[in-house]
């Protein structure tokens, strides 16, 4: 315990390190500034911006900003990059809620209930609760990293290919549960997403699959491309339909209070707590952990709610819980990096690059060898979260005012922002056209009452599921029983089976009742 306080004070010492700045225009006067606080602020601001702008992802931005950090001291550079990463988690919920465009895979579920709240004129409470939930989760997760970072590493190492496969199966079951309408249609959408995720080169043989010799498809369809299409462009096209003006105007007139009411807070508190716990645990798992965390949190809320039918129609818990979960996961995903030196996702891999360029290659001993760096970063996360909530709560008012902009001006702007965002991911014009095509696909899906959220989850989890299945079978030499003989994997599959039965049974019963009532008439 003493160690912990010592380490944390070291960390905060690093963050609040003051240096004297004497620019020439002050004629010899010096100002005390803290470079690391400044870096943290810049990171948080850029992260919020990146999160809010549709299409532009954290990976692309961190990659773009990486060269700039080469001129900075390593601690400052990492604090800034980390700030971008979790700042984007705050910002990502904004576009999901306001215009139904999730910028990151982790904010797909936020769009489901968040945007419904916005349509009911409750965008303010939705945005505020997302920020509050994220802040709470961020604080808890920071403490968790400081206290339990090292022991939790074991969890990351206990997950082999078999466990990941089972986790991905569980994740896909979540996607079925969160569907509003027909279970059959939700499953079809997941499988459609899985098929889309197969496009590109095969991991094991390198063979090009369903890419039709288009070089831009060689590495598969980007998440941003498909998400901007089926959510962003499709939503715009749908809103342009004749007769849709009425609904839009209604949304604009109805805006009520900006801040959550007492009831909202009481409803969301347990949801935030549950989301934080789920997110903290799942975030440690490298690859896909954070995405599954937000879906798992939503599913949990829907399953334990007294009235599950509220979900998908603007339930505040459906915003609070996944937003807490994704921010908690974003923070705890630093654990494998800080304790093992192994980057769990693409953004972290870029951070390792930033360290490498400064001559620090992170490894299992990075905590002992670079305590200032590690603890400075951990302390900065808490500071960063504090900054983000201070930045984000006042912004709620501005965002909500944006909703009052007439739609005839709003939609071309969204089209342009989305197009630039998608283009910037790979500097590939083909991606923009593909997103447009997926916009038409999404429009068609809406017209046939298919939900896009399960499709996106299938697309994100598809490659992870296939890769890990094949890895597990390669290692076991084709023995399928590994998924049941390894205890963790068996437990995960058990939960998945249980959830599936729980979801499908009432649906079947309802269908049967429907058929019976019809035949009686």
């Amino acid at each position, binding site marked *: 315990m003493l160690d912990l306080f010592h380490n944390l004070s070291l960390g905060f010492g690093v963050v609040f390190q003051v240096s004297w700045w004497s620019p020439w225009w002050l004629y010899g006067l010096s100002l005390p500034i803290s470079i690391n606080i400044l870096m943290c602020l810049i990171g948080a601001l*850029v992260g919020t*911006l990146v999160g809010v702008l549709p299409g532009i992802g954290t990976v*692309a*931005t961190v990659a*773009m900003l990486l060269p*700039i950090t080469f001129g900075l001291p390593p601690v400052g550079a990492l604090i800034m990059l980390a700030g971008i990463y979790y700042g984007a988690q705050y910002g990502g919920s904004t576009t999901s809620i306001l215009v139904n465009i999730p910028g990151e895979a982790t904010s797909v579920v936020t769009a489901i209930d968040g945007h419904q709240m916005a349509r009911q004129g409750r965008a303010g409470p939705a945005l505020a609760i997302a920020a509050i939930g994220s802040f709470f989760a961020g604080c808890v997760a920071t403490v968790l990293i400081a206290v339990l970072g090292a022991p939790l590493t074991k969890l990351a190492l206990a997950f082999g290919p078999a466990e990941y496969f089972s986790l991905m199966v569980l994740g896909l079951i979540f996607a079925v549960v969160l569907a509003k309408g*027909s279970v*059959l249609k939700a*499953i*079809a959408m997941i*499988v*459609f997403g*899985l*098929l889309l995720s*197969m496009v590109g080169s095969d991991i*094991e*043989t390198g*063979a090009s*699959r*369903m890419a039709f010799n288009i070089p831009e498809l060689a590495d598969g369809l980007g998440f941003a491309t498909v998400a901007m299409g089926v959510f962003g*462009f499709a939503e*715009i*096209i*749908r809103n*342009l*339909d*004749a007769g849709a*003006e009425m609904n839009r105007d209604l949304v604009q007139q109805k805006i009520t209070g900006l801040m959550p009411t007492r009831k909202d807070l009481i409803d969301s508190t347990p949801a935030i707590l549950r989301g934080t716990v789920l997110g903290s645990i799942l975030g440690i798992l490298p690859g896909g952990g954070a995405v599954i965390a937000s879906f798992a949190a939503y599913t949990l809320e829907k399953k334990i709610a007294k009235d599950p039918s509220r979900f998908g129609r603007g339930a505040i818990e459906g915003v609070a819980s996944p937003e807490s979960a994704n921010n908690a996961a974003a923070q705890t995903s630093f654990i494998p990096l800080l304790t093992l030196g192994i980057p769990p996702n693409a953004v972290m891999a870029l951070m390792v690059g930033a360290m490498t360029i400064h001559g620090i290659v992170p490894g299992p001993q990075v905590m002992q060898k670079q305590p200032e760096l590690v603890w400075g970063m951990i302390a900065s996360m808490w500071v960063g979260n504090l900054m983000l909530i201070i930045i984000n709560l006042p912004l709620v008012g501005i965002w909500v005012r944006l909703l009052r902009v*007439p*739609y*005839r*001006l709003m*939609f*071309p*702007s969204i*089209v*342009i922002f989305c*197009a*630039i965002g998608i*283009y*910037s991911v790979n500097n590939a*014009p*083909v991606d*923009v*056209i593909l997103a*447009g095509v997926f*916009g*038409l696909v999404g*429009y*068609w899906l809406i*017209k*046939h009452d298919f939900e896009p959220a399960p499709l996106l989850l299938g697309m994100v989890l598809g490659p992870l599921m*296939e890769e890990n299945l*094949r890895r597990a*079978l*390669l290692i076991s*030499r*084709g023995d399928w029983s590994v998924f049941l003989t390894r205890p963790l994997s068996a437990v995960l599959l058990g939960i998945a089976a249980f959830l599936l039965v729980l979801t499908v049974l009432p649906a079947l019963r309802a269908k049967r009742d429907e*058929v019976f009532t*019809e035949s009686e008439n």
Partner: protein
Amino acid sequence: MADTMGHSATATRNTSVAISFCLLAIAPQIFEFIWSFGTIFGWGAGRGPATVVISHATALLAGAPSALIGAIGGDTKKASSDVLLALIYSYPLFAVAILTLFMTIRSAQDYVGGIVLMALALFALWASSDLQGMRGFSFGAGTAPRMFGGLLVALGAGIALTGLLVDGPAMAHYSWRGPLFVMISIVFFALAIRPLGVVVTAFVSFLLAAMGTHETRWVEAIIVGACLTLGCALLFPYVLGLPMPMFPRFLVQ
């Protein structure tokens, strides 16, 4: 009397649905035909329009049936990709189109939705037909796509079936103006961003998209478009440091 009238109405609906399924069945062939005109102007590599028409026509009319008979007769000669497209994708959809004529569709939304999903899955099955399957205990490149493709065919059929058994909504109304102009705007953006730069592209795309609705007031749109363009030109290349050209090439040169 009313009943028969209603019946004849569904009959005409069914014919039009069946015809559109037939079109869907040869959509990839038509797409390649349109695409092949590009080769006349030297864009891209591919077959010329004449070759495309001849090879697809022979595949659809003669190649596929003979391959089918050959397969039954134990002839293992490898079929060409056009013949496979006809076998895997077009024929099942033609079959569905014919069946459609005899069905009473109770929910067009579900029925058409299911069949189109099925078409997508069949197309994916064709696209992954050249990939290697299982090799001993390890998956080949084609195993998973075929597995999920097959599953989606079944699910699509299931959804279509509910459209036949359970009453539900009819086809929703599609409008053309919004999708058309938004797509034109997106395609223009994609083609123009490299040669023309952010400033011109963003402004023109904004106005193109704005044509998607009759509500647009042009003076207002031009002013907002100009402001937005300025904002984008400052925000993306400068603040976020994304590499993209600002002005048209010919002007800079």
